[in-house]
């Protein structure tokens, strides 16, 4: 069944990056591809967090959260002007 996708912010723990992975972006991408063939990273972050933004189904997000080196998978929050 096709599930609705929503945006998530994925925090990665770089200390878990496998030695076999040349750079952290490849590692992020392979972690993401493990749970979804179609998802892509539309932002990567290095200063504020180590991680990326992507769109996933809830099931994919739960699966990604269990992957080694994944610190958290946070649903995106919408903010408003004050």
């Amino acid at each position, binding site marked *: 069944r096709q599930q609705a996708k929503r945006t998530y*912010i994925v925090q990665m723990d770089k200390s878990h990056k496998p030695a076999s992975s040349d750079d952290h972006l490849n590692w992020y991408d392979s972690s993401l591809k493990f749970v979804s063939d179609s998802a892509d990273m539309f932002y990567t972050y290095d200063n504020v967090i180590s991680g990326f933004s992507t769109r996933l189904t809830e099931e994919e997000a739960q699966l990604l959260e269990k992957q080694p080196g994944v610190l958290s998978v946070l649903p995106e929050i919408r903010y*408003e002007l004050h």
Partner: protein
Amino acid sequence: TTRTPEFLGLGTSEAIFPASDKVSEVVIGVLDTGVWPESKSFDDTGLGPVPASWKGECQVGKNFNSSSCNRKLIGARFFSEGYERSFGPIDENVESRSPRDEEGHGTHTSTTAAGSAVADASLFGFASGTARGMATTARVAIYKVCWLGGCFGTDILAGIEQAIKDGVNVLSLSIGGSLNDYSKDTVAIAAFAATANGIVVSLSAGNGGPSSGSLANVAPWMLTVGAGTLDRDFPAYVSLGNGQKYKGVSLYGGKPLSDELVPIVYGRNASNSTSGNLCLPGSLVPGKVAGKIVLCDRGGNARAQKGQVVKDAGGLGMILSNTESYGEELVADAHVLPTSTVGHKIGDLIKAYIHSEANPTATISQGSTQIGIQPSPVVAAFSSRGPNPITPEILKPDLIAPGVNILAGWTGAAAPTGLDNDKRRVSFNIISGTSMSCPHVSGLAALIKAAQPEWSPAAIKSALMTTAYSTYKNGKTIEDVATGSPSTPFDYGAGHVDPVAALDPGLVYDATVEDYISFLCALNYSAEQIKSVTKKDYTCDSTKTYSLGDFNYPSFAVPLQTALGSGAGVSSTVRYTRTLTNVGAPATYKVKVSSEISSVKILVQPESLSFNEAYEKKTYTVTFTAASLPSGTTSFARLEWSDGKHIVGSPIAFSWT
């Protein structure tokens, strides 16, 4: 802004402020709806080359090119991926896929923080004067992260990521969302990274007041800003057929009503809808409204939109009445027809008149801008209030600043009301919110940064907080417009910002990344949660006792337990520790504690601290011994260190649960 510089003492004490060339080394990054670069507030006359350390750029997009930036507006970028992934591609007929601000909010906030001085500014002649930002020569960098559909967390995170890379010194965010644990709050996490990079992060407290516990942006590394009024008013008078005359406010600048009285009707009685009193779109029956003044209740839709609804139905004017929850707070708007916004009490009197007369009549006349209104400041009803819902041991908001009826720069793409039908365009607009108070503090933080470039974000925040005032010159506590009664630290935090005093605070409560990590340990955060917030590998020492009371915050919040089933005489004792850093000349400071509650004993040890050199640190403890009081009880005290020249003040808030 045209009044706040004088109101804050910026206009009269230039001598003690940092030189403009030092201020021009400071970059304020504003995450908002973008920028209208043609605003005169971005005139770069007299500014030297951009700081050598600056790595930002002027991102080209629709209606925005590299020449849109100059030596004032030194950076402009936009972040829309998150928005577009959720909402679909931006409709470029409606909003530009560029840093351009077609909403107005971002231009208002950025010019409030750091706009250049512009003579003869006003909105339809209201609030006229020279408009300037708080740090007139500071540089501005805009990060457009807010779009018609809102501000998305992924875009905000990307904006702060870039702002850190670009080299901003102060970040200003007049936005908020739902409250979350810090490890799940993307803005709190990003603000932590910015703070760890030496950036002061100032955020709006929210407009959820006067409800208690309504705050946003409460992490202790954030500078959380509530809103107060200025000493300025925009009167608009209501004259009734019974001879009574009442004062309200308005920024209507068009053709006035004649002096002749015209029929007046309550929206509820001119509608087939149960919510006709709110004058929602389509709710008024033209046949019952045409040629009349309509009284509408505040709430449910935008204030200015109610005027448009009345106008569309053929009404001649509007009286906008506060309901009980808004109290007597008068927020002025650039209405599209003659309007007077009145407080709850006057609104009830006018409603009583309408109901008592067979043919009630009224007229509205616009007055001119008044200054010197007292008391001022008063806490705005809309300003969000404590206690802190996430960590009650940290008092929030941190302070208040001007946020009611603030004039600042505006977009050329939207009307002052923001209404689509309103075709008026203005260079300056007058609006209200904690969105407006936040950039005031961002600009003031930039001034302190310029004067003391080596100070940490926590030290700058402490300087702003410990020098804030909570009483008027007559000694009475700052009022809360929602109640008409004295306000409390849950409303104003440390008090109203006083930039002149903040430039010379004497002592500061400093904090490092390690202190923030200890704070997270005191919250029993796991190593994973700490890494989520800080990016650092850290395991709290299981043999060490971490206490929220020992976190070096410039204010005190003391949650106390009500002893269930116990009688009088049961008391609890809690001990807080603080460390002060001398940022002035060698001096001896003595402590003074004032409290409104005798059933809490407050003991400060030592009572005197001597500092012999700059940046010397001294620690003291405060012991609170409190009787058990009923759950829900709150009380307040104040702790001050003084060397006779400086007063380093901290509010104390007690709450029993």
